[in-house]
């Protein structure tokens, strides 16, 4: 029932290829409880049957050009209307061809404006066209970055939570009721805004002209948002290449710049540009380059045409009645934007991690039994939780890990792990630097794992030691989780998969890796189960889409960054697969399809960790090395049992069932056989490699290769085979009489149980005193660290009590930190000989050699052989400077330091030296010797010219100075920077290729749209 006849309402329907929605729209107009007094339709040269439908509904139609914008179309209709009579309450009701108001919509809108004379614009609550419970808008605004702001969550369900009459900045033109006189007074919609954001602009202008804008949720309309969701092409003027996003972003920026206070414009411009760039990156990652271009073009088109903005601002200035600041309360505060964004991200993650299961049980409300409603449907019991094998398994492993790690609550080092630097910044520094102050200095490329650890440290506020401590504490749980995600695909029985995952997390290789600080093997233990998860069908690899291939490439690249043995394994596996494909005589397209995908998995990870991987081609031992110190692995026999050996590994008597399981599975008739074959192959490789001695990472002695990474493959295959066997065997054993299978299963279970008890027992007792511990004492005494960048030859007896050996290295005043062993250079032969002669007492010239290489001190760390100390005492050129409980220090006599200047008369003097580069002054012609390893990137500049560089007889870089003056020493890192840039591009490319592709709006199904 009409509330009043005081108002005259003219409905203006603008159509543009809207035949899909128009019948419903016309019907909705016709069924209004308070019908519009007049309906006018404007068609912008629709290509479909829109005009026919309008005419059939006997609605007067105005024809307009196809590139006529929405505002112009409305203006045409208003112009056709009878002239406005002063004092009349005349309204125009804007109806889109995809917007169907509910029957009471107009009545409720008029009710809302009845006692609000200041209102110039009122809008209904807009609900979805398809999902009519989905609230689209109840008033709109614009964020500082140009985003259309509704204040609603994505796909928000309308439960009346926003009901009421709200003062808003603006309402959508779909269903908006606008006072005709004010519409005309303000000049209608801005003709520069042919589509999108014209509503916000009008609302804004109405506001600053002193009028009110309200959204009344009692009035409802359903909106298909056909243009925004790209359900129809946008042909309006200015919509370049029919790109609605470009138009929308451009118009958003226009609205902000045209309406905001002048002093806000610089800040808004920055915000618009930054957010456009951020969104462009996001679209690029989602593989939507068109949208990315739209974002940037939108801002660019506006910036290159500032005249439009200037003109628009002038016009608005004439219409402005109140301060522009009046709208500030309608602009969403930044925190609410952040909150909403965070909530959206959290919801996406939640939906991925905890998908809402499709309910299989009927609702209690459906029950016919009334008493059932009185019975609680669920009751929480802790005992019930503990009966869940998953919870019990994780809890047990957590407790064991905590007990086992009792000496590891703090900054960790020891074993292969060196102490982490205090911040991620140092790690980044190590990664980016072209020169490393380790030993005699090196220009080796830093391995990519340093960047991975540095990146991960940012999650811990840049505290790398905290990351390492937490990682070593959480590693067993992560390993178990990763294994379980894989194993539960093999068996649904949690009573098999959980214990199997538990044993994988407590496997000999896992325990040894945690105890001896093997980062790469731990990462391999976590990542390995995910590889078969991503790549489901290796034989028919072409069935995996490219996105999966690139996702696996990333995973393999991360693993390769930690250990290049991954490349060797990939080479073996992929080479074998290509050979098989070739033997199968596949059709060429299929063969090539497989070949490309297989080669991608081999080559890309190797490229992504370049240049470290390329350098490894010249230093093949790196292919077998792990991050950190080069510690020896175990004997071949131990490796055969699945135990990598070495410091911190399980003792031989804790024999794991890995080999037995693999052998049994090898003769199985189930899929377990395939796993056994894989496992045996890994075991063969591990056994063979374990016999190789490698010299790498600053260790000149040949050290038995640690084959932990290869044993990860064998262990995982063994566990997977065991799960398959047990899953199948259980039913067979129940159904059959006792025969050899029962005995075999019993034997296997007994051995597994024995292993479990022995390994848990060992790890919580003796195993807790592992090489990796927290808060260990420093090697270098504090007084030697006081002199910046001073080289000290450190002698120390290291190793187990029974097999101690004398070892030495050059320290730069500090203990080594994480990553430095990986870039440590080998020893200079002359220093090797001098150190040897220092020990055996024949080194009359040792001090001279040390001095020429810039070694200023010799430090013997206690405990040490007294005889050797006496021998050094007896040698010339070493002046004892201190003897403390930490050890004995001698100063190498003679002038030595990092940069030595030898004048023409042979006088040697020290020049001021920075950490890597230096800026200092020389007093005359002579020779500058830099006591660092020779590298072509060392340069000294004087008066803008490079000094001649040569190798001296010690192979140190030497520069000829021809005159007195200031000099600048630098290590040119251009090549390193070039590599890093290429690496960044390669990673970005692969991440984009692996990332899930975004969909254009037109590709989103109707059902998914509201």
């Amino acid at each position: 029932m009409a509330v009043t006849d005081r108002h005259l309402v003219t409905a203006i329907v603008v159509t543009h290829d809207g035949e899909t929605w128009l019948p419903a729209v016309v019907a909705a107009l016709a069924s209004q409880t308070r019908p519009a007094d007049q309906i006018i339709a404007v068609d912008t040269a629709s290509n479909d049957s829109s005009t026919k439908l309008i005419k059939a509904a006997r609605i007067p139609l105005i024809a307009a050009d196809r590139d006529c914008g929405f505002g112009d179309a409305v203006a045409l209709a208003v112009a056709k209307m009878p002239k406005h009579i002063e004092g009349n309450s005349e309204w125009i009701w804007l109806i889109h061809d995809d917007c169907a108001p509910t029957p009471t919509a107009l009545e409720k809108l008029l009710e809302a404006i009845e006692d609000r004379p200041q209102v110039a614009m009122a809008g209904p609550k807009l609900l979805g066209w398809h999902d009519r419970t989905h609230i689209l808008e109840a008033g709109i605004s614009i964020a500082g970055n140009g985003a259309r702001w509704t204040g609603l969550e994505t796909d928000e369900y309308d439960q009346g939570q926003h009901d009421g009459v709200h003062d808003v900045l603006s309402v959508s033109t779909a269903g908006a009721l606008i006072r005709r006189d004010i519409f005309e007074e303000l000049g209608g919609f801005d003709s520069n805004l042919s589509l999108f954001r014209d509503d916000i602009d009008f609302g804004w202008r109405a506001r600053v002209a002193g009028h009110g804008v309200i959204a009344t949720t009692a009035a409802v309309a359903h909106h298909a948002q056909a243009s925004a969701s790209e359900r129809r092409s946008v042909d309006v003027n200015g919509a370049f290449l029919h790109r609605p996003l470009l138009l929308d972003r451009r118009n958003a920026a226009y609205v902000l710049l045209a309406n905001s206070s002048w002093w806000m414009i610089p800040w808004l411009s920055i915000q618009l540009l930054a957010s456009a760039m951020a969104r462009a990156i996001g679209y690029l990652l989602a593989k939507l380059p068109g949208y990315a271009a739209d974002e940037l073009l939108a801002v660019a088109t506006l910036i290159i045409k500032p005249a439009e903005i200037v003109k628009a601002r002038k016009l608005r200035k004439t219409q402005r009645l109140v301060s522009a600041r009046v709208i500030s309360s309608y602009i969403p505060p930044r925190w609410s934007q952040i909150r909403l964004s965070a909530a959206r991200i959290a919801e996406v993650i939640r939906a991925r991690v905890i998908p809402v299961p499709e309910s299989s049980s009927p609702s209690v409300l459906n029950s016919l039994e009334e008493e059932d409603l009185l019975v609680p449907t669920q009751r929480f019991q802790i005992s019930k939780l503990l009966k869940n094998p998953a919870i019990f398994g994780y809890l047990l492993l957590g407790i064991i890990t905590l007990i086992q790690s009792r000496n590891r609550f703090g900054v960790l080092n020891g074993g292969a792990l060196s102490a982490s630097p205090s911040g991620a910044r140092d790690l980044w520094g190590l990664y980016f630097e072209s020169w490393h102050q380790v030993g005699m200095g090196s220009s080796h490329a830093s391995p990519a794992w340093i960047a991975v650890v540095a990146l991960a440290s940012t999650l811990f506020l840049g505290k790398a030691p905290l990351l390492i401590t937490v990682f070593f504490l959480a590693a067993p749980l992560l390993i178990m989780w990763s294994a379980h995600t894989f194993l539960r695909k093999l068996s649904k029985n949690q009573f098999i998969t959980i214990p199997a995952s538990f044993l994988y997390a407590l496997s000999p290789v896992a325990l040894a890796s945690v105890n001896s600080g093997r980062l790469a093997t731990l990462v391999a233990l976590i990542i390995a189960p995910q590889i078969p998860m991503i790549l489901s069908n290796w034989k028919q690899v072409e069935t995996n889409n490219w996105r999966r291939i690139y996702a696996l490439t990333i995973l393999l690249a991360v693993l390769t960054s930690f250990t290049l043995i991954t490349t060797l394994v990939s080479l073996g596996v992929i080479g074998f697969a290509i050979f098989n494909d070739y033997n199968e005589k596949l059709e060429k397209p299929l063969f090539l399809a497989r070949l490309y995908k297989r080669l991608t998995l081999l080559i890309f990870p190797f490229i992504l960790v370049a240049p470290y991987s390329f350098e490894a081609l010249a230093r093949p031992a790196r292919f077998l090395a792990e991050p950190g110190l080069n510690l020896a692995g175990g004997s071949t026999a131990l490796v055969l049992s699945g135990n990598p050996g070495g410091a911190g590994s399980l003792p031989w008597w804790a024999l794991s069932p890995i080999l037995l399981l693999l052998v049994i599975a090898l003769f199985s008739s189930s899929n377990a056989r395939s796993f056994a074959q894989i496992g045996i192959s890994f075991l063969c490789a591990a056994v063979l490699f374990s016999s190789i001695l490698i010299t790498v990472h600053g260790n000149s002695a040949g050290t038995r290769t640690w084959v932990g990474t290869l044993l990860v493959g064998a262990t995982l295959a063994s566990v997977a085979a065991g799960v398959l066997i047990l899953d199948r065997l259980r039913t067979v054993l129940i159904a059959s009489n006792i025969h050899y299978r029962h005995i075999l299963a019993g034997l296997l279970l007994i051995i597994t149980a024995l292993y479990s008890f022995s390994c848990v027992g060992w790890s919580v007792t003796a195993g807790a005193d592992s090489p990796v511990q927290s808060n260990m004492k420093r090697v270098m005494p504090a007084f030697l660290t006081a002199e910046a960048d001073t080289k000290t030859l450190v002698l120390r007896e290291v190793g187990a009590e029974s097999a101690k050996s004398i070892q030495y290295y050059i320290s730069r005043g500090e203990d080594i930190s994480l990553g430095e062993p990986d870039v440590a250079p080998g020893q200079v032969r002359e220093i090797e000989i001098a150190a040897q002669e220092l020990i055996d007492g024949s080194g009359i010239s040792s001090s001279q050699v040390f001095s020429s290489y810039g070694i200023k001190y010799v430090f013997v760390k206690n405990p040490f052989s007294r005889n050797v100390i006496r021998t050094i005492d007896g040698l010339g050129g070493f002046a004892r400077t201190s003897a403390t409980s930490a050890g004995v220090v001698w100063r190498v006599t003679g002038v030595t330091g990092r940069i030595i200047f030898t004048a023409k008369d042979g006088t040697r003097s020290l020049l001021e030296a920075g950490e890597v580069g230096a800026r200092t002054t020389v007093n005359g012609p002579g020779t500058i010797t830099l006591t660092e390893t020779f590298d072509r990137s060392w340069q000294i500049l004087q008066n803008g010219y490079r000094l001649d560089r040569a190798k001296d007889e010690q192979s140190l870089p030497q520069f000829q100075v021809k005159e007195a003056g200031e000099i600048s020493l630098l290590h040119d890192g251009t090549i390193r920077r070039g590599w890093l840039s290429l690496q960044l591009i390669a990673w970005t490319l692969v991440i984009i290729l692996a990332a899930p592709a975004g969909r254009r709006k037109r590709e989103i199904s109707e059902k998914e749209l509201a």
Partner: protein
Amino acid sequence: MKFKKPLLFLAALVASFLVASALTTVSNPNNYSESYPAVVCPPTLNGLTSQISISSRKTQYQRLENRSSKTLPFKALRFPVSKDSLVISAQGTTPLIWQSRTGSWAGGTMCSGPSAAAWFVGGTANVTSRGRLILINSGLSDAIVDIQSYTENAKQPIKSVNLKSKNYIQLSLDSLAPGDKALAVQVIPRSGRVNAFMIDEQGAGLKALGGDFVNSYPNASKELVIPAIPNQLPKKGEKASGAHTLRILTPGDVNTTFTLEVLSADGKFIPVGMSSRSIDAGVVSEFSFEPKISASAFAVRITSPEPIVASVSSSVTISRHKDFVWSTATPPLTPMSVAVTGLSPLIAFAGESIAVKVQAKLVNGKTVSASVKGSDIATWRVPANARSITIVSSSKGVFAGALIASTNGYGFIPIVNGSALTRVEVPNSNIRVLNP
């Protein structure tokens, strides 16, 4: 065949294991370099004459003061030294030095490598003393040496001495504990390549009372064997030359007892009063004993519940003048070579069961072998024209010392390896040393 593939995999595994086992070299990360450190002979002090016995003319030496690494060959098997201390690259054959003061005394000692610590039980600091403690730094760096002296009265304060590189100093024994008679000195090098020697020379006014080298012993122990003590038998109608004096010290803080057992060709016995005799800690004690034995040399074994150091001073008469000999304890005998050119020592072996194979290399290049067997004590006279003797093998628990007589005097030289093969580990370069 149903199990062909599994068996192939198993075979591959076994083959891998066998190949790996075969490839695995016995990797001993520790390499060693073996060398004989250069030995140092004491300098020739004023008024003395010295001669060094060397086994080969090609043996290289350099004077202590020489700072270069250049060495010279001896070109002789017995080399007279006028003044300097010599550093000799003896290559496993320990040279002997024989020093004498004409008509007064003679004595000898081994030229030896640097030592960690040395005990000298002998010498006196009273008015008769003309003895010297010689400290030699053969290293290229300065050295610091602590000297701890003990006397019959008390433990003396430690005296620290700085020694310049390639240099030696001589300290008068009477400066260590002025006025005290019985000295025992421990020399502890704190840094540097240090050797120490002690000469005990005594005189009363213009009358020389004799002298001898006091040989060193590395550390105090609960059982000591002094293998060669001269027992000069009186000629017909003459009186015995005198009693032997045991000088003994327990350097610890606890008083102790000791038992002295004489090992001689006449049997093994404990002299009267030498069983469970108590001594005070930190104080040098002296006891005289005069065993009635017919042999010209005997040995003693001293046992104690606490670590002790000891030596025996024996009076001898030679060429109608009196001399004394300091016989000191020696470590157990090990295979070694000693250059003896120009000397013809009597070597006494002491032990429960003696079975020693010795070889003498003569000046003419020939080799003479001998097998010395016995119990308690056995002696062997080195041929007069021998240039070196080699202990080829020895039974366990055998100790040896040499007694040498010359016209100027009588001396005791412990048979110890002055130039033992030193096995030094070749260090590896490993950045691991910089990780705690």
